[in-house]
């Protein structure tokens, strides 16, 4: 099953970076468990209608970061990672979102205590 990736080509974020971030997110959320085989560069570029260079770059960097590994020469699979690496992987996307929230909180002059209280409420409510 190829990973479901949505790439926005017009928001200025390089496509390879979006692919990397989304694959990392999917691994962190468990959608792509360890050992899953990823589609070839060619196949993914056809699916996403993207330049194969872009896919190639994303895969290359993911491999370099230790997120993916190459088996049997050609196929790329999701690498089994140690627990602390997994935790970092799960915290990173959250950190990105919270940075924006923190900036906004400072702009709105919301105190850290109030902001944390709000965050806790939202975590508990489970309403999307």
């Amino acid at each position: 099953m190829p990973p479901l990736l949505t790439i926005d080509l017009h928001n200025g974020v390089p496509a390879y970076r979006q692919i990397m971030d989304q694959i990392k997110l999917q691994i962190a959320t468990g959608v792509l468990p360890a050992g899953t085989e990823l589609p070839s560069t060619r196949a993914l570029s056809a699916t996403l209608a993207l330049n194969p260079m872009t896919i190639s770059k994303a895969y290359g960097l993911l491999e370099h970061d230790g997120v993916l590994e190459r088996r049997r020469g050609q196929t790329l699979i999701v690498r089994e990672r140690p627990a602390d690496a997994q935790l970092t992987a799960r915290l990173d996307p959250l950190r990105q979102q919270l940075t924006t929230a923190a900036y906004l909180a400072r702009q709105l002059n919301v105190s850290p205590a109030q902001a944390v209280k709000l965050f806790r409420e939202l975590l508990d409510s489970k309403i999307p």
Partner: protein
Amino acid sequence: MISPNTSASPLVLSDVTHRFGEHAALHDISLEIPAGRIIGLLGRNGAGKTTLLNISAGLLLPSAGTCRTLDIPSGQLDTPQLTRLGLVQQEGRYLEWMTVRQQLDFNASFYPRWDRDLEKRLVEALEVDPKRKIVQLSPGDRQKVGILLGVCHRPSLLLLDEPISALDPIVRKRMLDFLLELLRDDGCTVVISSHILNDVEKIVDWIVALDSGELVENTPFDSLQESFAEWTLTSTNGALPETFAEPFVITHQGDARQALLHVRTTDSEAVTRFAASHHVEIRSRPLNLDEMFPLLTSQRKKQP
């Protein structure tokens, strides 16, 4: 399987200058096109894009400098190179009395490797009626004929001058998909010049930009995306300064409380240093090609 392409550059320009009478259309252009990429050739009207492509294809001989296409001086391109070169001109002229089918067959007779299957698929995808005479076609359909003629022999270097500006959105998308397919299957190098930055953004991975005949940019598209940004500044203590002296600031709008900056820098620490030195909070947003394009030229004007 796309491997890093280490073959020689299919298009090398060295100090190319070209004049039309008094006016210099190109001024000292030196660049090497990387192989196996899709290169977006950007520039305003009259920037010299068409001249550059025509020189590359050997249609024009440069007034000064040299251009090597497929490893041969462009003025001496002959059969072995021309079978591997594809050119789609902006306002190409064909034998207007011919039907599309006749024109395709005529051109096909000159190429040893004319892919009939590809031609058939493309004729269907582009929605061209092969039985119509070229003289009766609308400008958009004529563009489609130009594309067919330039592409069906599976060139290894494809030069496209505004190939999709007159096509409707659906056909345009098919055309872009097809270009990607060509890249995937043949490892072909594609140079596409277009005003429709939205479309170019979807497929290119390298940008060459011209402004008034001069080269202002020759970088991978990723690097460009990563170096440009829009910063929203909010002051943390008092009013914002009126100007910012840093050389990477290209434009500056705003008042004492909030400012909007367009910056270009590859330094990842630039944000923190800037925030610290000017006591501001910065929200950074990447720019898309439409927003980047005007900055490419104004940045050149800023530098002495």
